[in-house]
């Protein structure tokens, strides 16, 4: 299952693990990614709160976590090759979180609801 925040982060859920990254739409809007500011393994993240930032040439954008829990892995490939986010944002997740509040998912957008939001933002 995949869920989205209105701020364009996704959480792909496998059991109680969330793979968190940015949507294809967000990656396109940002342009080439030059740096991903990630938390450290073991840090806690909170649903709806900022956990890092993603930088394009032009600007830095905060990243918000769709779920609460502990960061169990960061995507180390992004340290030297942040542009992987542009190539395939949904395969190249940013952090992996062990969720401690499954009810968080109920507040997130379904793929259909998120697609509608993107369509609106484009116009």
């Amino acid at each position, binding site marked *: 299952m995949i869920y989205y925040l209105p701020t364009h982060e996704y959480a792909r859920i496998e059991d109680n693990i969330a793979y968190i990254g940015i949507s294809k739409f967000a990656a396109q809007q940002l342009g080439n990614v*030059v*740096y991903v500011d990630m938390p450290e393994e073991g840090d806690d993240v909170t649903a709806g709160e900022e956990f890092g930032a993603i*930088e394009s*040439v032009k600007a830095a954008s905060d990243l918000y976590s769709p779920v609460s829990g502990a960061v169990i892995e960061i995507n180390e490939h992004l*340290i030297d090759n*942040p542009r992987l986010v542009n190539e395939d944002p949904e395969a190249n997740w940013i952090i992996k979180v062990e969720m401690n509040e499954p009810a968080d998912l109920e507040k997130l957008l379904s793929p259909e609801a998120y697609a509608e939001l993107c369509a609106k933002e484009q116009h």
Partner: protein
Amino acid sequence: MKTTCLHPRHTAQGALMSPFGGFDMPISYRGIEEEHRAVRGDVGVFDVSHMGEVRIHGERALDFVNRIFSGSLTELEPGKVIYGMMLNPQGGVVDDLLVYKRSDRDFFLVINASNIDKDVAWIMECAAAFGDGVTIDHQSDEWSELAIQGPNAEKTMKEVLGIDCSDLTFYTFKEFDRDGHHLLVSRTGYTGEDGFELYAPAEVIIAAWDALMKAGVEPCGLGCRDTLRFEAGLPLYGDELTDTITPLEAGLGMFAKVDKPDFIGRDALVAQKEQGLRRKIVGLEIDGRAIARHGYPVLDEEGNQIGEITTGYHSITLDKNIAMAIIDARFAALGTRLQVQVRRKTFPATVIKKRFYTPNYKK
């Protein structure tokens, strides 16, 4: 929001648009990096019709413009362009601008879009205090402007636009009529490359844009205009220059001729020179991948804040993280080790020369 005459072209061509200086302007077309590289290696065209234009003319025009402008206009030959600033009495910068000298009685000023209203009000106020013999014509609505920039700019001007610029040296201009329209072209720019700025009425600029697009010239947005000027160490009003930063602090003292006849702000600069500078704009190279953006704190090695970033990017040409910052002058020596705070983390940084990229001007 104001728009330029090319606004329908930008939206039809799918440019990413954003407000700048009161105008809805293109930030990028194909991508900031691609456009940046096109200008460094070939040629690109920018819609800069948002820039403001003011004509100052009359019997006493020379004396008046000398009074409000930091550069020396008396010795400047007609047909030449000069960069400099208008200062307030405290030595802060009202705006940085180009002055085109047609004659001692006729000057053409090109000012920043974001400052048009402020500048025109300031010039009017100064003119009222100055007295007769000078007429101010605010002409921003009459002129549109393209910047054609890059090593192949001269060739493009000739082959695509039919304008032979081989007779123009760096910072000179010429004017001519074509099909009943008046055109002004100068060998100037804001990218650190050879290039030209073309001023003309909207219909001429639209036709020129269409011809450049048909010829495959890269359309460029304000995104790469900023990354290009930054690499060349050129200031942007609002970042490196403000009402409270003097040209001396900005490292632009060579454009403020304190030895020329009196001008507004001169006394403040002389006093600042005597007292010594308390802060300076420097270049920084940052270790690590984090990008130091405008307003981020600059710290000494002990962690005390000593200034802030004015502009910072991952340099496209140099592939380094660099920034300009205004800092306590005691830390401004080349090679000084400092730190930059990027969100929750700090990164080591070193003071370097702020002309990161050596411009390729055709002198």
